[in-house]
């Protein structure tokens, strides 16, 4: 067609660029924790930010909340595609690690906790990541995941039980 469009049409808003610079690391870290793969996480964050860019000027909501919501949906699409391909989901149906640490220890073994978190079923891990990494409230976590607050509380409770089982004697009262 031979049409030349002015460069300004390809520019992103300075507000948006500032948002990306300020918040993309947090979004990327959240994505890494959700999918467990740095490269994939970068792709998902990029897609979420592109989506946000298109709605940037008329967005009537908290942009980070929008981006995080899109990110959660993208990670779920990813897991669904993997499931369709017959690939086992890393975080589902995992058996907690047996406790092997000296019961006399009085602090949480963070390596064991890290493994236990990685072994959580995916939905439980999503809740833990959003609540304790992204520091969202129960209500905000529910909104981000598209579930009820009751479900968030239930998943948190189940995750705690599972983590305690995995840690065995590793967690003690102080």
């Amino acid at each position, binding site marked *: 067609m031979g049409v030349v469009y002015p460069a300004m049409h390809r520019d992103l808003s300075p507000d948006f660029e500032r948002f990306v610079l300020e918040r993309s690391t947090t979004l990327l870290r959240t994505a890494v924790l959700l999918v467990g793969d740095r490269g994939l996480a970068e792709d998902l964050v990029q897609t979420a930010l*592109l989506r946000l860019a298109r709605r940037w*000027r*008329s967005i009537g909501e908290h942009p980070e909340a*929008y981006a995080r919501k899109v990110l959660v949906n993208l990670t779920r*699409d990813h897991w669904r595609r993997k499931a369709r391909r017959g690939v086992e989901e890393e975080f589902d149906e995992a058996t907690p690690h047996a406790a092997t640490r000296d019961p006399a220890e009085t602090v949480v073994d963070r390596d064991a906790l890290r493994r236990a978190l990685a072994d959580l079923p995916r939905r439980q891990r999503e809740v833990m990541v959003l609540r304790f990494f992204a520091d969202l409230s129960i209500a905000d976590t529910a909104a981000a995941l598209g579930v009820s607050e009751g479900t968030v509380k239930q998943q948190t409770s189940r995750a705690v039980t599972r983590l305690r089982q995995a840690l065995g004697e590793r967690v003690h009262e102080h």
Partner: protein
Amino acid sequence: MSTDQELFAEVRAVLHEEVADVTAGPDLLAAVRRGHARRRISRRLVIAVPVAVAAAAAVVAVSVHTSPDTTRSDAVPPPETTRLAPVNVAYVKQRTTEALDGLQDQVIHEQAVVTKGEKYSRPGEEALYERWLAADGSSFRFRVTIAGKPVVDLSRDVTADVYVDYRTRTYHVFPGVEPSAPQYDDVLTPKEIQQGLAHGDIEVLGQEQINGKPVVKLHRDAPKAGVAMDLWVDATTYLPVRWQWLQESSTPFDVSWLPPTPENLAQLTTVVPPGFTEEK
């Protein structure tokens, strides 16, 4: 055993440790820039060529107008998420579909009062977010005002995509685009609601109340890489009266259906105030 709070503190520490070395580099922004440019170029290739000229003319021709009073509603909490009363799903779908017929000339006005701080406002500031949509999907306008003063104002149709930033007293003019083009997921036309109901993309959840009036709650799942939304239709007229994105910190928008008077139609177009500078 540790208390739950102690365990949560450890979980928090472990999660932060796990990604402490993960940093988004400048490559990410560069990639978003490239992707954005590709999408905008490809989108414009399907738009009629002369619109850029028309867009410029349209902006020159816009006239100053005053905003008619809008029905102001204070930040209304979302309906209680308690048990929904069951409804006849097929009946609601049919009535909603019928209600949306014959409204193509209407102007849909949506508004939300945000006080918790959003992109354009600080916490505690009362920001009025308003959207106007031609029911046939041909025009869309979005405006944010704080204490009666506009902050940003944009509108788009096939002739022009105009963005006015009152903070910098500047404006942009982009080539026009159909507001309900698939690239935008921020408008939902009556036709799209009808299609969603027909195809099962929008489901009927049940009946509840908003401000004491019975409404039926509908739900649209997230489109690909999008955000899901809830939608409420009046249980008598079956016209949409409220919608809300299902994401954290979202605020419900209350919906009014306005007749196509000259005053209401004028609301679909952003006016560039005299003295503002065009940003190139």
